[in-house]
């Protein structure tokens, strides 16, 4: 698959503070790239650098196979974007705001305005001034604008901010449709793990300006390996049985009486038998998997949802 966007060691320093440090990422055509990180992790600064709004201190950006060193080299007509809360001119209508975008993108046809508004469910409010719009409506209008010129790459910074649950669901579905039906490559930043989990095909995790991990979502799922969780009356004795009689070293006592076993998990019955044989009372035995949230917490040493 061809690479749509690639960064190499992208860094942004502000005097003493380094907002983004050596971030390397690769987006291939058709990806829904979930760019995950807590608030202040450096997501928006990275996206701003990709759009030429912020000049990198060092590092490289490659868009559609061409190295970009200045904003004027960015093929903006191939990119749609929402950075932070989408901004509009409040005194004019939704249609007029999109018409400004159409003219600046050099598009001749006005029909796409109605199509875009229809796609985000704002056709009925098309002639209302944007100052009457709620935050959720502005987010949807932002999406309509980003889609208007039929971009190949969509860069969306926290696109569900301010949306109600119904709006979040609709936006998620819209993003999935755009990727599947229109074959648009999507870079989606979020601090909400569940949002990334439900959409992304590729995940990049950024923390304190550094890219901690960049993997396909399936790999990430695999990394969140399965384990056996056993509740026993005596975890020390259970540990002894695991090590000396079952030769299992990959286990963890996570709290009093609760053990997680990461190897030979298919032999749950044998493990249970051995525990019982050594007089241990097994209160509960279950096969479990780490959630992405737990994995993210382990990786960043913080909360899953910033």
């Amino acid at each position, binding site marked *: 698959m061809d690479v749509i966007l690639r960064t190499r060691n992208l860094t942004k320093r502000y005097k003493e503070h380094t907002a983004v440090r050596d971030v390397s990422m690769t987006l291939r055509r058709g990806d829904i790239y979930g760019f995950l990180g807590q608030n202040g992790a450096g997501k928006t600064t990275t996206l701003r650098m990709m759009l030429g709004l912020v000049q990198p201190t060092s590092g490289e950006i490659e868009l559609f196979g061409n190295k970009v060193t200045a904003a004027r080299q960015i093929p*903006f007509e191939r990119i749609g974007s929402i950075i932070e*809360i989408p*901004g509009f001119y409040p005194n004019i209508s939704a249609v007029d705001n999109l018409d400004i975008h159409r003219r600046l993108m050099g598009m001749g046809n006005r029909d796409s305005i109605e199509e875009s508004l229809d796609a985000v469910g704002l056709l009925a409010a098309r002639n209302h001034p944007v100052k009457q719009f709620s935050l959720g409506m502005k987010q949807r209008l932002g999406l309509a604008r980003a889609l208007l010129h039929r971009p190949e790459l969509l860069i969306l910074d926290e696109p569900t901010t301010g949306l109600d649950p119904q709006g979040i669901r609709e936006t998620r579905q819209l993003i999935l449709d755009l990727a599947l039906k229109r074959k648009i490559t999507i870079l989606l930043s979020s601090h909400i793990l569940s949002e990334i989990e439900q959409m992304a095909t590729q995940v990049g995790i950024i923390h304190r300006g550094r890219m901690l991990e960049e993997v396909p979502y399936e790999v990430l799922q695999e990394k969140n390996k399965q384990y056996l969780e056993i509740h026993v009356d005596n975890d020390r004795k259970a540990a002894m049985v695991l090590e000396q009689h079952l030769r299992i070293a990959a286990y963890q006592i996570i709290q009093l009486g609760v053990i997680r076993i990461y190897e030979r998990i298919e032999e749950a019955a044998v493990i249970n038998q051995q525990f019982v044989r050594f007089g241990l009372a097994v209160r509960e035995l279950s096969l479990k998997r780490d959630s992405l949230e737990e994995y993210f917490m382990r990786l960043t040493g913080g909360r899953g949802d910033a």
Partner: protein
Amino acid sequence: MLNILYIELFKLKSSKMLWLIVLGAFFPGLISWWGAFYTMSKGHPMPVADVLSNISYMMSLVLAPLLFYLFTAYIVAREYQEKTINHLFTYPAPRWMFYLGKLLTMLVVITATFALSYVAMVVMALVYNGQEVTVELVLQYLLLQVWMIPVHFALIPLAFAVSFVSRSYVAAIILAIVPMLLTSTLLSSSSPYNVLFPWVAPYFVFKTVLDNELVNLVAMSLTLLVTFLIPFLFTWFYLEKADVHSGS
């Protein structure tokens, strides 16, 4: 470029800020004509030329700098406050084009204000005392208003520079008020160096057009040129280099 100018003007559609043009064009006239009609009713009519002079003086030296700086601040600062700046610089057009578009918008605003003001002045002068309204007087004030357009436009890039750097209205308003106060002080001193203070330029235009007084037009033009060019170039390079954050 015309497309960008059109868009900049289009952004002002239904904007309350357009009232500033109306205010600038009619408010000095409203005050002056009210005074003129009042004194006329008392049997002491003011000459039309004096009323027109009062209007032009009030407008060009007092009201116009404040209104035009406020308008400039509005068309710049709103891009940051409405967060549209995040989008404005992600179009296939260089940043300087948007800057030129805004600058030309101000030229349109200044021209519209002086044009409306002129039309209002002539109409009201005819209503007040048609016999005093000579062709010479009409042409003299036409020349004055036309002169005022480039003079006030030359002062605008400084307001752009301050607004782009500060991203707020406040700095540009301070920039308008401080020279306005200094202008009145300088005019009372009648120093030969007044000509180096660009905000005094409208006064010298008065002297030249209305009183046929000899003023150092070369020095005045050079002062205005420098006042235009330095902030104009500064803003140009600033926009090319500056990181864009919407103030968040």
